[in-house]
């Protein structure tokens, strides 16, 4: 490994410790200030350990389901759109995905709730629409930036188009695709706070209850925990990203 790689890795490692430390510090601050205060009955109910854990659990479940759905949708679609003969469809589909991200999620959410009623699946659908673009775009870009000479060499050795895709193109696109998935994940952690409006729970409902009952500490706890969660998820995603990157590239 060259010195430059080592330096790059060292800074990468150093940065990777910053996020979890900040997240942990935020969580500590939240719980310390909760414990230091006299809580009234509404605050005590909303900020009890089980309540907070349940909200975090709902939040993570929403993020996990929608991110998996995004990957299952966007990766195959991106692969399909990067095949010769399908390239012309790429621009219109990207435009649709762009629109999905441009439309405010709260709008989609409310629209879905009015049309189909409330529930976790409405939240998942709006999260998927919102986070589709980065994964789709990065899949297409990741496949597009693969050196044509490698594909030529692969076909020249007698690999079928599918074997070239699986053995050469996809592994080489993995770093770019992972970056897109990481962006989608972080977007979902943020946007999932809106899921409370379709009755799907999550840390957003903590914030909403705080607003409804006019309890500022509850609003703050919900917001800060969301930030801490986003930082932790981003850090975890970064660790996975480094681990999943193929060696040699």
């Amino acid at each position, binding site marked *: 490994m060259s010195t430059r790689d080592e330096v790059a890795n060292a800074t990468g490692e150093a940065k990777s410790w910053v996020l979890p430390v900040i997240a942990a510090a935020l969580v500590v601050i939240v719980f310390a200030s909760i414990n230091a205060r006299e809580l009234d009955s509404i605050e005590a109910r909303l900020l009890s350990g089980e309540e907070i854990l349940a909200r975090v659990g709902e939040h993570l479940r929403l993020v996990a389901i929608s991110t998996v759905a995004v990957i299952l949708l966007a990766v195959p679609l991106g692969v399909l759109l990067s095949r010769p003969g399908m390239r012309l469809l790429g621009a219109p589909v990207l435009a649709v995905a762009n629109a999905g991200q441009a439309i405010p999620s709260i709008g989609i959410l409310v629209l879905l709730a009015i049309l189909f009623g409330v529930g976790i699946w409405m939240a998942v659908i709006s999260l998927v629409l919102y986070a589709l673009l980065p994964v789709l775009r990065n899949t297409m870009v990741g496949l597009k930036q693969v050196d044509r*000479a490698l594909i030529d060499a692969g*076909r020249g050795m*007698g690999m079928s188009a599918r074997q070239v895709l699986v053995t050469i193109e996809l592994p080489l696109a993995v770093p770019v695709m992972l970056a897109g998935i990481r962006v989608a994940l972080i977007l979902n952690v943020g946007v999932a706070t809106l899921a409370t409006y379709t009755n799907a729970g999550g840390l957003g409902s903590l914030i909403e209850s705080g607003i409804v009952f006019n309890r500022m500490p509850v609003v703050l706890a919900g917001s800060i925990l969301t930030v801490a969660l986003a930082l932790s998820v981003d850090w975890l995603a970064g660790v996975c990203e480094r681990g999943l990157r193929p060696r040699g590239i």
Partner: protein
Amino acid sequence: MSDVMIRLDEVHKRYDGQAGDAVAPLSMEIREGEFVVFVGPSGCGKTTTLRMINRMVEPSGGRIWIDGRDVTDVDPDELRKHIGYVIQQVGLIPHLTVAANVGLVPKLLGWQRDRIEARTAELLDLVGLDPAAFGGRYPKQLSGGQQQRVGVARALAADPPVMLMDEPFGAIDPITRARLQEEFLALQRRIRKTIVFVTHDVDEALRLGDRVAVFGEGSRLVQFDTPLGILTNPADDYVRDFLGSGAAVRRLGLLNVGDLRKPEPADRLPLRVSSGDSVHSVLERMLRDGADRVIIEGESTEDDRELTLRELLMAGSAR
């Protein structure tokens, strides 16, 4: 088995919406174990012709025969597994080790693992890379020259009778290129593959090829002959131009002194040269015309000087 390994019969290529053929109808026969070099300027269709042999480019018409079998309509993926293919960019897969790269085609062919490992080691050895030291490395940890050796090893993996090489040494520095060419010639003397090799470098073509196919503008095959034949009797002015200056000296590189016979004595006219010509170019022209003396033209006829070849050699000698 016939003596002819590759036969092209009126093979041509025309792209949609383009006037004229990218490759004009071409017929040629390449014998088993022969090293044939396609040479010509960019855009002359030499690479397209090469790529039609393994159907990386589908011919618009004509037939291709390999080892007595018409392969114009067989499954191209199947065909290519039995034809070695080396390209200028090498195309080693960056996330696979050197050993895995070399073992790719055998793996496609479904060989057993230990057979692939043995073959990989044998091939790395053959191209001068220690399998223990290099097998586990990734391509980016290798120099350009080492990468192309691996490229050659990979193309040889399934022991294909035919190798197609598209400017394999084109992106390599001149010193390494010369060494690779030499090593590759030595390798070819041992393995006796039928090789089709594309280059735009005339010197490389003449050094490597048993026969050289010179392609011209409009993608036509202008001359297909041995290097000595081409240097001795260029088909036309195009070939003469393409060979450039120094063809007579280069031709000497292909002759051994033992091959020479004593010439008939003949009166040769002296060559007229001007005082600004380099000694090198004068010797080249003397060699071409068989002249044994030169007249160096002065300001006027009285200033002309005459030098014999012997005097020229002594005056130009480094001692």
